[in-house]
């Protein structure tokens, strides 16, 4: 091979693969292990492996209202360290079955040698307390009423009897030996989980990620997208936005990253995707076919159902799962690993995976192409005005409704100080109250007004839209026939 051809080949490979490097991450979770014992107000815990505690989970045995929680972790090698950042949790309503997580945002609670657990004095103490007053600073912790809590391990074994909440702990460690390291930047978990069937209409979304301190500054952020699969099929995007960005946040601090939100969703099939974003220095130069310098990687998708699934949604979910079987079945899903499946002298060589990699564009690449098409073509004059109008019409942002004020003169008006009554109509209160009233109506068998009438109204509106379009097309057809017959005569 000529040197110039070799250089061209290297440049071509660099063009194609250069901007798509994905870094894999491995995490080993050691679920609750070790031994427990308790004395006085704190529970003592002895894990079975070295590592850094970065996640504590609590859940109640009974519902609580307006409680505030805090935790202090103390033990060998981490005396006085606390769970910073997410230490304070304000819980308006904490129902049985819900849980609250405390995360060690600064990754400071490191224990280097658990063999010290052989003596009871060196156990790690977990002191969890709650109060009905807000906790604004760590100093408030000392003012807590030292109320006893019932703490249990993951096997629901009661380890400390008292009153209050149950306790469940998780310890995340990496696979390396000391010094402790909690691993690469990654998305650890997010929910709803794959295959979940969620009872709507309110759906909760939770994401847990970890940002390594070395990556702050080089990683631009984390993005979570919710996609309504039903509306993404048959190009029904016009019906309403099929994708909603739940989160697009920049990463500025190291440690655990948590995000929780809830939104109202109708019945159907959905897909949620969580990605880390990374800024590429000179990304455009490396890959001139894409002007996007933010590359998303470590993307993970979960498909779930709210209420009743739809026929089209089920088909779409199955197709998505089968397509991704090629990728998720591998030990790593980076482009480099997938590309190696096309190399016949590589141990990963696999014709099936290679074919899928070559001919099936992944959702991320397709989304980039669509974004490029939108930015480069659809926003140009004159059709850009149509695109802008469509963007505004399909936006989900809300604005306060106007308030009306009316002044009414109550007397004859001949006095020096007329009696004027001013009435103010706040449409926001009126409409919110009316909507709540309508949604509160229930039938005798427990179905809400919405459960009963939403499918009916959807069918009526859908039929009206289809009839309007059909009439438009068929009437024009008759019109064409009239014109043709006139020409013939």
């Amino acid at each position: 091979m000529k040197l110039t051809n070799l250089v061209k080949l290297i440049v071509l490979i660099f063009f194609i693969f250069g901007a798509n490097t994905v870094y894999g991450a491995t995490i080993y979770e050691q679920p609750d292990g070790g031994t427990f014992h308790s004395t006085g107000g704190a529970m003592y815990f002895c894990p079975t492996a070295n590592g850094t505690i970065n996640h504590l989970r609590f859940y109640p045995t009974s519902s609580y209202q307006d409680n505030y929680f805090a935790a202090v972790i103390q033990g060998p090698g981490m005396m006085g360290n606390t769970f910073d950042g997410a230490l304070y949790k304000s819980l308006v309503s904490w129902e049985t079955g819900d849980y609250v997580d405390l995360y060690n945002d600064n990754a400071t609670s490191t224990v280097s040698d658990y063999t010290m657990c052989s003596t009871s004095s060196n156990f790690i103490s977990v002191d969890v307390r709650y109060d009905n007053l807000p906790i604004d600073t760590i100093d408030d912790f000392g003012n807590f009423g030292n109320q006893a809590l019932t703490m249990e391990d993951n096997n629901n074994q009661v380890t400390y009897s008292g009153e209050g909440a149950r306790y469940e702990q998780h310890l995340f460690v990496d696979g390396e030996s000391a010094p402790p390291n909690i691993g690469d930047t990654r998305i650890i978990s997010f929910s709803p989980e794959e295959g979940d069937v969620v009872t709507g209409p309110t759906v909760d979304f939770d994401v847990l990620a970890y940002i390594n301190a070395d990556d702050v500054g080089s990683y631009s952020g984390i993005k979570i997208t919710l996609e309504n699969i039903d509306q993404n099929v048959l190009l029904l995007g016009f019906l309403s936005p099929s994708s909603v960005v739940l989160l697009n946040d920049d990463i500025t601090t190291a440690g655990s990253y948590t995000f929780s939100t809830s939104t109202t969703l109708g019945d159907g099939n959905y897909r949620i995707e969580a990605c880390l974003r990374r800024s590429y220095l000179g990304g455009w130069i490396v890959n001139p076919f894409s002007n996007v310098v933010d590359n998303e990687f470590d993307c993970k998708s979960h498909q779930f159902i709210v209420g009743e699934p739809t026929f089209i949604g089920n088909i779409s979910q199955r197709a998505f799962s089968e397509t991704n079987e090629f990728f998720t079945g591998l030990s790593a899903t980076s482009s480099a690993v997938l590309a190696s499946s096309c190399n016949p002298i590589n141990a990963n060589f696999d014709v099936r995976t290679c074919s899928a990699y070559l001919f099936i564009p992944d959702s991320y690449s397709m989304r980039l192409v669509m974004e490029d098409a939108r930015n480069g073509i659809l926003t140009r004059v004159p059709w850009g005005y149509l695109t802008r109008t469509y963007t505004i019409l399909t936006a989900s942002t809300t604005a306060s409704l106007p308030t009306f004020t009316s002044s009414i003169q109550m007397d004859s008006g001949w006095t020096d100080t007329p009696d004027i009554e001013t009435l103010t109509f706040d449409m926001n209160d009126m409409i919110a109250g009316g909507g709540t009233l309508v949604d509160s109506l229930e039938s005798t068998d427990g179905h809400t007004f919405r459960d009963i009438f939403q499918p009916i109204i959807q069918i009526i509106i859908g039929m009206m839209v289809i009839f309007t379009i059909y009439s438009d097309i068929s009437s024009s057809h008759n019109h064409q026939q009239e014109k043709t017959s006139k020409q013939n005569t």
Partner: protein
Amino acid sequence: MIINLLLNVIVLFLGAIFSWLPQVTLLPNVAGADIDTALMTGVGQLNTFMNAFWPIYIMFQGFIFLMGYYAVKVVVRFFIGHRTPGH
């Protein structure tokens, strides 16, 4: 990879053709009125209303779908003229 590359090339080609056209970021002012802000506020208030009364949201979905049909028809008419259905 291959299909993605082809799509990228197509988008790049079309983008290059239309690159001389100005890009629309906001709707224009008409007779001093900020149409873009007015429309955003109006749609925001409509969203507030629709959040409270979900039947309105379904009707609005139908309206947007119908507007999409007419928009597609305009584009099709641009390319094939009087042979467009509904012309």
